[in-house]
């Protein structure tokens, strides 16, 4: 399958890397020669160094044979026009545009199939929403919400004193009364999908699945106290910071935004008259003293510089801030960050990748989240009558390795799986699977 990507920015590179690792043929169109050279050296794909809206460039990229066209340049207008050109000149089944302007995103572009755009991605909105959700839930762990159920996935860092340390998954489940599931274990750089016998060790980060209500109780057992998050500092007034502020300020929280760019500060202070906007650099220690930032409840770092985000979050904790949250894009850093004293690690939700994957594996898949920079995927799919998994008890299913069923939603009721449960037609099944088992699970679902 051939995928043509327009724009080799951060998002373009990320998407390309993921698709290449899944065995797709990727062609990138990038107009900047330096950037094109950089990409050629790092990714196993063809790079066409030309302006992307030109028909010749598109032809040279072999778009006639492509199944998917993804436009992720920095300009909304270029992305939309590129999709328009592709849809009028070529026959590409799926056209995805990155559109960051909220006015466009809210418009009925995909419904009315404007310029042939099938899907609009706006990862900044998703990320900001994720930040707001996590804060609403106490900012004590990363939170992943699912669309069709009130179950959520959260992580806990296993400390030596923790209840979870040195026990097998089976034992842990017996010891806690609330229904929950260990969906995955992050050990070093490795993501493990556990079986009953898997031993949880000190230093692991475990991913739990439960409802919001039950998490409160589980977290108390795991030794994390609930805190109110009323005074929040947002470091970085870029688009993510702005959107996060917009979501948070509505809930009546006291927001301080720290941004280095003066012009940007003016825009923010105009937009959020109730927030305190500071024109300062977070790496300048005096700002902590001057504004007594140490007394705030939470520091969220969302600058473009992920190293700065991690350091600032750590430093804030030493200055007395109760909780810290850092935006980290690099998958390797995410593993480190989870082990440091950063309470929540936000990774820009890769909605572009998710959307593409969902299109690629169309059919009964309802939604799909790729997590940990593609090390694992959470797939929600609808069980149909013809599927061979119908009617069998779970313990009798020859489920692929490194994947587990997280939940079955039947008539809007969540059921945590157990061996005697049988899948019925119309059930929504949520599965987590490690990267290497994705093809197997795909086959399993589609059959």
């Amino acid at each position, binding site marked *: 399958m051939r995928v043509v990507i327009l724009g080799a920015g951060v998002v373009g590179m990320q998407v390309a890397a993921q698709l290449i690792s899944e065995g797709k043929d990727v062609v990138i169109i990038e107009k900047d020669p330096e950037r094109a050279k950089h990409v050629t050296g790092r990714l196993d794909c063809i790079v066409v160094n030309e302006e992307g809206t030109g028909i010749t460039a598109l032809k040279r990229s072999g778009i006639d044979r492509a199944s998917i066209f993804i436009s992720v340049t920095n300009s909304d207008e270029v992305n939309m026009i590129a999709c328009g050109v592709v849809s009028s000149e070529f026959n590409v089944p799926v056209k995805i545009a990155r559109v960051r302007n909220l006015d466009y995103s809210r418009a009925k572009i995909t419904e009315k199939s404007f310029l042939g755009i099938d899907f609009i991605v706006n990862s900044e909105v998703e990320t900001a929403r994720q930040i707001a959700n996590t804060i609403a839930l106490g900012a004590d762990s990363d939170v992943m919400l699912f669309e069709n159920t009130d179950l959520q996935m959260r992580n806990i860092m296993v400390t030596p004193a923790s209840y979870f340390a040195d026990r097998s998954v089976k034992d842990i489940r017996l010891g806690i009364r609330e229904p929950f599931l260990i969906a995955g274990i992050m050990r070093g750089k490795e993501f493990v999908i556990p079986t009953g016998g898997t031993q949880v060790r000190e230093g692991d980060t475990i991913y739990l699945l439960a409802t919001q209500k039950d998490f409160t109780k589980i977290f108390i057992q795991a030794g994390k106290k609930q805190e109110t998050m009323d005074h929040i500092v947002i470091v970085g007034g870029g688009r993510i910071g702005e959107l996060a502020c917009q979501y948070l300020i509505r809930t009546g929280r006291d927001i301080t935004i720290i941004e280095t760019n003066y012009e940007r*500060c*003016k825009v*923010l*202070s*105009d937009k959020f008259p109730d927030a*305190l906007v500071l*024109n300062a650099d977070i790496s300048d220690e005096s700002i902590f003293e*001057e*504004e007594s930032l140490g007394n705030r409840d939470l520091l969220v770092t969302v600058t473009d510089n992920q190293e700065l985000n991690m350091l600032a979050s750590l430093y804030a904790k030493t200055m007395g801030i109760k909780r810290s949250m850092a935006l980290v894009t690099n998958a390797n850093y995410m593993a480190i960050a989870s082990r440091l004293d950063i309470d929540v690690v936000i990774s820009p939700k890769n909605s572009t990748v998710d959307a593409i994957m969902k299109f690629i594996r169309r059919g009964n898949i309802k939604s799909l989240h790729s997590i940990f920079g593609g090390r694992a995927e959470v797939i929600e799919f609808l069980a149909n009558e013809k599927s061979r998994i119908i009617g069998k008890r779970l313990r009798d299913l020859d489920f692929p390795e490194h994947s587990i069923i997280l939940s079955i939603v039947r008539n809007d009721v969540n059921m945590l799986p157990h061996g005697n449960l049988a899948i019925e037609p119309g059930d929504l099944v949520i599965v987590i699977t490690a990267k290497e088992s994705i093809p197997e699970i795909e086959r399993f679902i589609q059959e």
Partner: protein
Amino acid sequence: MNPLILAKIISILLVILAGFMGLPAGIALYRGEYASFAAFAGTMAGTVTLAGAVLVLLRKQRADALTTRDGFLMVTLSWVLVSVIGALPFFFSGCIPDYTDAFFETISGFSTTGASILTDVEALPRSMLFWRSLTHWLGGMGIVVLTVAILPLMGIGGLQLIQAESPGPTVDRLTPRITGTAKLLWFIYIGFTVAETLLLMLGGMDLFDALTHTFGTLGTGGFSPKNASVGHYNSAYIDGIITVFMLLAGINFSLHYRLLTGRLRPVYRDSELKAYLLIFAATTAVVAFSLYGDVFPTAGECLRYASFQTASFLTTTGFATANFEAWPLLGQIMLFILMFVGGCSGSTGGGIKVMRLVILFKQAVNELKLLVHPRGIFTLKMSGGMVRKNIVYGVSGFFFLYAAVLLAVTVVVASAGHDITTSFTAALTTLGNIGPGFGKVGPVENFSFFEDYIKWTLSFAMLVGRLELYTVLVIFLPRFWRK
């Protein structure tokens, strides 16, 4: 600078003025006030002949090449010449035998001030009283069109704001063309005139009294054909109607337009309007409180007199229903403070204007916030939009100039040996286009006792205050005249 175009435009204006003189001339003829009729007719004939001659000579001159500088000169000259000519009937008819007095009275009318040199108003013929009130109405209309449609184009002291209710780079004019905007404002103004006249007649006034009081109200002028001003009628209903219309005239006319077209959002969001109503309500409450028991026995009466006098001072109208100089000092001080406020921008009211005070207040609060958060960024917002720095500078400059002119005029008045209260409030009331002051220029006194040079100075203050200072003062800048 193109003096020919200026001459042409001002000639047109003077012909229109002469046309309006036809109204009191008609009244004079109808009532048999022949001396007045002769004065009006003479003035009209002279003006039309002279202006007509200029127009005929300059008929080929196209009037579309005005620069901003021409604009300043044109506006100032128009106001001065209109007053010079408008004063002639008073002078010719012998009603006001001294031309200095006649000019003072007339510019007080056109600038919607309402300060008078007449000791016995009711002694004047009806036609003269009508003309006197009509100057308020014309001046008020002129100022609305000027401040809503013309001054913003010249960027006068923060007035750009009145068109910027909706933030964004495009100026939010009412209509795409200035003539369209002016026409619209005329309709609103005339609509208010008809409404108030009818309502006042319902309250028992005859057509003449209703019209003249309406002129005085909508222009926020304050001339009344009665010696005791509105107090003459001693009617709660009339007080109420006039209070409401004074307040309406003190509101930005572009908001009236929006209200009439059903666009409530800009009205609801307007910071200036909110501040204006808040100032009115708070001052009324304090004044009423000060009156309670001592001056009026019932709360209803306190509120009636307090709200009327508050509205009269806030909108810079200057009507009186009571001798407020006999009121408790708390109430007097509140009214005195209002003399610094004035109406909303784009209204017929004078003074510093609520808009400017709100901007200065918000800027001051931001300065305080900045002391607590030295690296904080605070934007100044009006009506939901961001106020740019240069507007704040313009407003600060205006405020300083206002204070400077106020003090200068005070010094001139005091130079003749008048006491501090009289000197200061005479300067304040003329610069703010209010009318009555305190001391020897209180509500039951008038300006006739002043020396001639003081009358001319105060006339100048009225003109400067009316035209938002900058318009007049810029003409005294040497570089204004440089080629």
